[in-house]
């Protein structure tokens, strides 16, 4: 198969590409700025530019494009050739970092997804089967069980990122109703691999714990019973590939890539305490927390980073992946505290987590 992958230089994109190439598929990677495609362990995937038509099995072709422009920023002929030669679309491109202007999320995550839907639906003859990488956190802030069939429950959102992913998934669902064959994949929080926590892109949970473990922010409003659901990148990539390879069975469904052992904040603290250099954050109830009591650097770190993630420290949503198992039965090879320990160990080893001062 020839598969178009967006977000090819992202974590999920690159890992999925590596697996699909190995399985003999041809990959056309739509990249925002022409650059190298590197897997999570730092392996460079050799590629050549896409110039039209079909490539060879196991070959990686790259084409520079832009989800924020009509026609994906491609020249019309190349757009047409790509559209007619592609058998599947894997749309994993998204702006995932927190703290960016709202319109950026809208432009990339929502409008960009609409452009990809148009690309797939407007192929003359037949629509191109479409796999969309969503997120578990379209669940928003509403507590309770969140199953594969759940979607719009009137939930509020903790960040513009979440809201944009929710709107994008709505577009996918609408396209599905209009005849686009789709599979929606919702991963939980993606962290380093299940073997030793290897990670090349530190973001989200890493950014938060980098600050708290260094003791730069000691107090966070939150509940010890709130849970964070982390999953290893290698397992997520396996899940995405399973969705692609079992497309006809998975078509029309939503797959959950969440763990069987979501981590309560108190368990995360237990893991933090295993590292001598780590401070363990205090979680205090929201109504007694006042960030204005913080001073200097602590306040700055709180306002600029921690506050963006605040909503995650009080959520108690339970994710289930019961109906995902008939497409992708494998459980994460490492999860819960074991996975988090690997993730933290790796971040310490490569110097991402470090105390800038040894004052206690």
């Amino acid at each position, binding site marked *: 198969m020839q598969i178009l992958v967006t977000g090819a230089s992202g974590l999920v994109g690159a890992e999925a590409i590596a697996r699909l190439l190995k399985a003999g598929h041809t990959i056309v990677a739509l990249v925002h700025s022409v650059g190298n495609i590197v897997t999570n362990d730092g392996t460079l995937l050799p590629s050549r530019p896409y110039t039209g038509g079909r490539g060879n099995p196991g070959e990686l072709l790259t084409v520079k494009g832009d989800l924020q422009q009509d026609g994906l920023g491609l020249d019309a002929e190349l757009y047409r050739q790509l559209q007619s030669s592609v058998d599947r679309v894997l749309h994993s491109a998204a702006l995932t970092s927190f703290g960016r202007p709202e319109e950026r999320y809208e432009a990339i995550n929502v409008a960009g997804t609409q452009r990809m839907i148009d690309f797939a639906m407007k192929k003359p003859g037949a629509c191109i089967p479409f796999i969309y990488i969503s997120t578990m956190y379209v669940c928003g802030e509403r507590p309770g069980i969140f199953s594969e069939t759940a979607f719009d429950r009137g939930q509020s959102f903790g960040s513009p990122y979440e809201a944009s992913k929710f709107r994008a998934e709505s577009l996918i669902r609408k396209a599905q109703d209009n005849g686009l064959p789709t599979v929606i994949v919702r991963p939980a929080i993606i962290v380093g691999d299940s073997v030793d926590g290897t990670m090349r892109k530190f973001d989200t949970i890493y950014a938060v714990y980098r600050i708290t473990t260094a*003791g730069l922010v000691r107090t966070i409003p939150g509940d010890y019973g709130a849970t964070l659901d982390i999953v290893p990148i290698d397992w997520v990539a396996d899940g995405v590939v399973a969705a692609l390879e079992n497309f006809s069975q998975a078509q029309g469904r939503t797959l959950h890539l969440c763990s069987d052992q979501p981590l309560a904040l108190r368990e995360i603290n*237990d893991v933090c*305490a*295993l*590292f*001598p*250099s*780590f*401070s*363990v954050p205090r979680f205090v109830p929201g109504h007694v927390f006042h960030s204005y009591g913080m001073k200097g650097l602590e306040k700055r770190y709180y306002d600029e980073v921690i506050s963006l993630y605040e909503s995650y420290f009080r959520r108690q949503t339970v994710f289930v992946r019961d109906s995902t198992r008939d497409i992708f039965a494998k459980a994460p090879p490492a999860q819960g505290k074991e996975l988090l320990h690997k993730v933290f*160990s790796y971040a*310490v*080893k490569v110097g991402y987590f470090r*105390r800038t001062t*040894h*004052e*206690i």
Partner: protein
Amino acid sequence: MSLNHSFLLQLWEQSRQQLYAQLGQRQPSAVFLEGSIAEGFGNERSDIDFVAIIDDGTEMATMPYILFLENRRVEVRLLSRERLQRELLQVKEALNAGIESVAQISWNQLERCQRFIGCLPIENEAYIKSLQDLLGKESLGRAVALWFEDFARQTGRYAVAMLALEQDDYARAWIKTSVFHAAKSFVAQRGERYLGSKWLSLQLDRAQVDKKLVQRFWDFYTEKSQDSSAIDYLHKGIALLEEFSVSGVELNFEKVLADSRAGVSTWQIGRHLHILRDEDIFRLDDGSARVWRRIIWNTPCIQIAHDKRSAQATTDAKNHLADFSRAGLISLCWGGEGEIRARQLGTSCPLLTGKAALISVDGARLSASSPAGIQLLPVPARRLAEAGVELTWANIGVENSREDSEGALRSGQLRVLQYTLQRMIQTASMVALAGYGITPQPPLEEAVLEALRLLPLNPSLVEAIQRIETESIHSREQGQELFELAGQIVRELRQLGGDEQFPASFDTASGWCETVMYGYDWINLATHLNARFPASAVGGRGSAEEARDLLASSIG
């Protein structure tokens, strides 16, 4: 020292009659003599150890029966054929799997196998021989040699680790242990399979080890610390290790890594760091805490300790790391080869109860400064029980060493005497440490160093201890003097910082017996609290059953 066969047969016959309740209804399949006398060592004070093999499908406790016959102490053990067979085959299997597996065999098991293979048959030699052949002398010799080789390597590495952390006295103590056990491995390869340490001098002679090498070994072993720097001493030690065919120890500090230990976690309360180690919790002062915060697992200790502010700050950090390791808060590893298996025990700091020891043979002492008739002890119940059991153990160790010393003195075995006197002081130090709630106990190598470091000892006592530790014995007169000095030191260490302990004298049989009876009280409490029992002199976790056995064998 050998005893003639008919005398042994006669002793066995008397033993059998005295143990009518145990042996009247069951016929042993075979009987043998084991231990020092069977091995051709021993002296007139040595015990006579009989073992009867029982083959009736029952599993006996290893508890020995103690008898006094013809002015000799006689111990009789009953051992099932199944157990003997199982343990011999386990050693054989480990030997086939290699040194790592041999190193996992417990000292007690290897010793039981060795004592059996080196035994003197009393009844049914053919039966004994058929069981011995399951392992055989050759294989046993290789297993013993490998066991000591691994121990020598691990303790040698630990010595390097101590030097890396500028713990010079500890480095010296451990390299001594390492070289000593390398010599044990060396003689085991030459047919000297007996495990006990005290006869090494005789084993070196019997194995006809090159006289010059033996002399270099004893010179090294008895060298006084002021004679050379610790680093030179380790160089010499490592050279001897190589001569004794033990490789894998090098003076490379980069190899010594700090790694995590199960059950240890870090909790800051307010501004203060607390380290949880299972159910114990330690508070760190600011200096220790700063070093603790610098630790990155699996990193060379010297890298963690390095402090660009000053050499003194680096030295301080090394001291803290050494303390962390002794307290069992970090483990020391040898780059790429896992934890250094020399000193696994996480001991503790003395309980902060002022000058007097908290624990004595007959339970906890009340604080003299408090008028309260009921006092909450500043120690969890289980820790109290564990320390109490170890205090009892250490006291038994002292008495065993005293007996060995008396025997060696009478027989003029001066090197053996030197060894047993040192052992007597080491075990007496353990008595004192246990009194202050320090449990698990440090290994023997460190017992004296830890007592000097942690306990309020007066200078004359320290000087006397150092004399025993370092003085070479050249004559019986000198041996007699040091024997008396050792007795004095033991008395002082037993009474440290408190009233004279009851019983006042350990020298009388009745006083000693009473002490042992108190040991059973400690065992009852410790069993109730599911406490850790010391398995042997080298530490580890034993069972309440073994503890009772050990006590039983001490009533004399």
